[in-house]
């Protein structure tokens, strides 16, 4: 380009890398979105569909923007815990009912006791958030402070529990819909599939978006439930409570159980389902905006306070209004409380019923955030396949999300949408984790001895004792109802994780390069074998590649037709001089066997005093343009590649020939042909 003065010329320099890469340091390139662009029309179409369903791919740098604020995190990580306030009171009442009407007032004290346990557990997990800001919760605490095996037990129990949460909460939400629309029973599997698919897609779209989607129903439920508690309290304080009589209430038994410690412990264990999901925040600390640990700890406190108020408040309302659990298909305790507060059939009542169904669906969402994160941490530690630690286009742990959805839906499908049989399993895993993490934290404080370690240790020790007691009660109560499955499933999962870890450790030690090793250039000899199906441009290209690897090269033609072989030999020797052709006759018409045998013969013929050579098997391939062409071509090449995979001292090289390579091919070999033609047809 010419400047203003004659000497001021300048040249614009092309930057061919610029659309695809960016140099960010010496020898360091960073790929741009164009580098990931699909090259084929079908690939581009798939990418467009993916972008429409899941959103545009996010770069790793955008991860910070995907982090959650405390408000969104509360909705995402606490929907499971908060939703349990919808049924925890009922679980207590169903147990105390066995001791008659006079025992029902004890439900308030049981709920207060559980809330104290909730306070201890959440206080303990606040400490876990601060002590282990990389997430992992009970797994990391138990692995670091007790032993790896305890970490794995906690992880296995949690993974099982998260799957249960999705299956059970989806089934519970469908049951809630059924109580309003009985016809929903016939399509419950379809509803389960749609709801799980929608939650899966929302989670695959990334944290921030799923936070946007799920925050509204969660806060709607919380707001309306708080309103029920507020209205109930107003009537209780004002002495204007009108007791509710339920038509289809569960009748009191003929023979009352005595009110004793056993019954109270049973009620306590039943109501402890309120604590499920409390640990999810500690698992997902890195998902919070900075300062991650502080924000996670504060969210934990907010969640515990909200859950405590809702749980005790709803129980108080239930006791004061004389609410009793109903027979199957009847309204739930929270529905009765909403009826008492808002009036049956009022818009607020309908809104609360809808939000209860939604929050039960969304309880599954907590698992969709916690399960993939835990699986990713386990994968990073080598206890699960590495794919689980990879983030997808939207920075979500796609493998974990999809696996969770698949198993949960599989369970729902297998149990016909009725997961009551799974409920005994539910909450056992959580208390295993609570107990292990609290014991782990006791050891943590004993070892670290930070400021205030004594009272922190006291909190964790109290929590450990309380959660261990609840665990024993839950297991003893539910063991024969199905909790025994945990005793089978947890060790099975632990064994599987240990197996995977050993496998990875073994391969890592096999692949390790010693730090003091200095790698010198190879000194082994190389030879090339090119299996050919005839004389084609693809074969010529493969042979030329082979020639660039080693001078010790031979083409091998395996045939059951001696005449065809003789004809090929004549052509080959004339057109590709200098490369020996070995014809292997195969009377049984097989290809792979004779080639492998030929390679074995070559190995056997190698001088024993010399180190084994590297054999490059160069396979010519014709590149298919479309899916149907892939069926037509390269089937033998595929079989050869599979057969040669893992053969010692053997490297398989696939040399693709594209139709677009014609010009390249002409340029490579055209010179000689032109010379021949020139000799035949000399210019005038």
């Amino acid at each position: 380009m010419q400047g203003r003065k004659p000497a001021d010329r300048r040249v614009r320099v092309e930057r061919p890398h610029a659309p695809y890469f960016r140099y960010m340091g010496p020898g360091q390139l960073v790929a741009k979105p164009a580098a990931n662009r699909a090259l084929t029309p079908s690939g581009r179409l798939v990418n467009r569909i993916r972008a429409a369903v899941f959103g545009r791919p996010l770069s790793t740098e955008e991860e910070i923007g995907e982090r959650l604020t405390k408000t969104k995190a509360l909705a995402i990580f606490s929907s499971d815990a908060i939703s349990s306030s919808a049924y925890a009171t009922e679980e207590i009442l169903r147990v105390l009912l066995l001791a008659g009407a006079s025992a029902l007032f004890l439900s308030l004290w049981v709920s207060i006791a559980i809330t104290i346990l909730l306070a201890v557990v959440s206080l303990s997990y606040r400490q876990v958030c601060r002590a282990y800001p990389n997430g992992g919760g009970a797994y990391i605490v138990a692995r670091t402070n007790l032993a790896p095996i305890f970490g794995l037990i906690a992880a296995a129990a949690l993974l099982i529990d998260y799957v249960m949460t999705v299956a059970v909460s989806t089934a519970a939400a469908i049951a809630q819909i059924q109580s309003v629309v009985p016809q929903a029973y016939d399509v419950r599997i379809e509803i389960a599939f749609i709801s799980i698919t929608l939650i899966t897609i929302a989670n695959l779209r990334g944290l921030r978006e799923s936070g946007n989607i799920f925050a509204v129903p969660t806060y709607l439920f919380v707001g309306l439930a708080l309103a029920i508690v507020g209205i109930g309290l107003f009537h209780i304080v004002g002495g204007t409570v009108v007791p509710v009589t339920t038509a289809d209430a569960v009748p009191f038994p003929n023979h009352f159980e005595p009110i004793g410690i056993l019954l109270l412990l049973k009620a306590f264990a039943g109501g402890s389902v309120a604590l499920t999901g409390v640990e999810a925040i500690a698992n997902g600390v890195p998902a919070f905006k900075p300062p991650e640990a502080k924000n996670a700890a504060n969210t934990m406190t907010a969640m515990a306070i909200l859950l405590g108020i809702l749980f005790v408040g709803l129980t108080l309302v239930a006791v004061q209004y004389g609410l009793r659990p109903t027979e199957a298909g009847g309204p739930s305790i929270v529905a009765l409380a909403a009826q008492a507060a808002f009036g049956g059939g009022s818009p607020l009542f309908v809104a609360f019923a809808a939000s209860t169904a939604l929050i039960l669906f969304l309880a599954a969402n907590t698992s969709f955030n916690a399960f993939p994160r835990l699986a990713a941490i386990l994968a990073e530690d080598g206890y699960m396949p590495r794919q689980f630690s990879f983030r997808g286009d939207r920075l979500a742990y796609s493998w974990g999300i999809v696996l969770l959805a698949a198993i949960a839906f599989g369970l729902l499908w297998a149990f016909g949408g009725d997961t009551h049989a799974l409920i005994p399993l539910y909450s056992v895993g959580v208390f295993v984790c609570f107990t292990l993490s609290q014991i782990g934290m006791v050891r943590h404080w004993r070892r670290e001895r930070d400021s205030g370690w004594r009272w922190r240790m006291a909190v964790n020790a109290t929590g450990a004792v309380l959660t261990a007691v609840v665990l024993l009660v839950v297991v003893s109560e539910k063991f024969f109802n199905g909790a025994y499955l945990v005793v089978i499933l947890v060790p099975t999962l632990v064994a599987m994780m240990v197996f995977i870890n050993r496998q990875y450790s073994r391969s890592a030690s096999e692949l390790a390069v010693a730090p003091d090793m200095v790698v010198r250039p190879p000194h082994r000899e190389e030879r090339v074998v090119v299996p050919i199906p005839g004389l084609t441009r693809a074969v010529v290209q493969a042979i030329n590649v082979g020639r660039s690897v080693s001078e010790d090269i031979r083409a091998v033609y395996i045939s059951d037709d001696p005449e065809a072989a003789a004809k090929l030999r004549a052509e080959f020797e004339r057109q590709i001089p200098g490369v020996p052709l070995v014809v292997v006759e195969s009377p049984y018409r097989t290809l792979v066997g004779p080639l492998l045998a030929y390679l074995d013969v070559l190995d056997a013929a190698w001088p024993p005093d010399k180190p084994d050579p590297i054999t490059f098997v160069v396979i010519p391939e014709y590149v298919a343009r479309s899916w149907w062409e892939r069926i037509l071509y390269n089937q033998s090449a595929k079989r050869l590649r599979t057969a040669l995979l893992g053969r010692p001292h053997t490297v398989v090289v696939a040399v693709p020939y594209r139709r677009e390579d014609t010009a390249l091919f002409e340029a490579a070999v055209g010179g000689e042909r032109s010379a021949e033609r020139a000799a035949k047809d000399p210019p005038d």
Partner: protein
Amino acid sequence: MSDAHTPIFQRAVVALNGGPSDARIIRLIADEARHSKAEVIAVHVVEIDWTLPLDADIAGRSEEVQRVLDIAESVAEDYKVRLDPVLLQARDVGAAIVDEATERGADLLVVGLPFRKRFGGEFAIGRTIPYILQNAPCAVWVVRDPMTEEST
């Protein structure tokens, strides 16, 4: 008194020299351009001495030269601003920058100035900045690097 909503510039050419001030200048301009939706052109000129042809394959091959514009592009991207990177080879850096700004119709030209002293302690402004200040048709901002221990 100027209107607070009037953009300071609509098309800025930012001359980069590969020094520490590059990122600072890009941040300054990108922050303004983000609000005003102004166009930002980053120019890096490699000076070719007279012993070589002007179109000698120098800048295209140099990873270090490419990095100057790539890093600038990355900084601008952090501000959600698209930056048009231009790599030039010229005999005289100042003339190439002024010509590029003129040809592009820029209303602002931004250049960085390292803080250097000549032997004897006098501040050295070099010859590029004075040329730009004398010849640029648009407004020119000069952003001087802060003094460092070495430069003082």
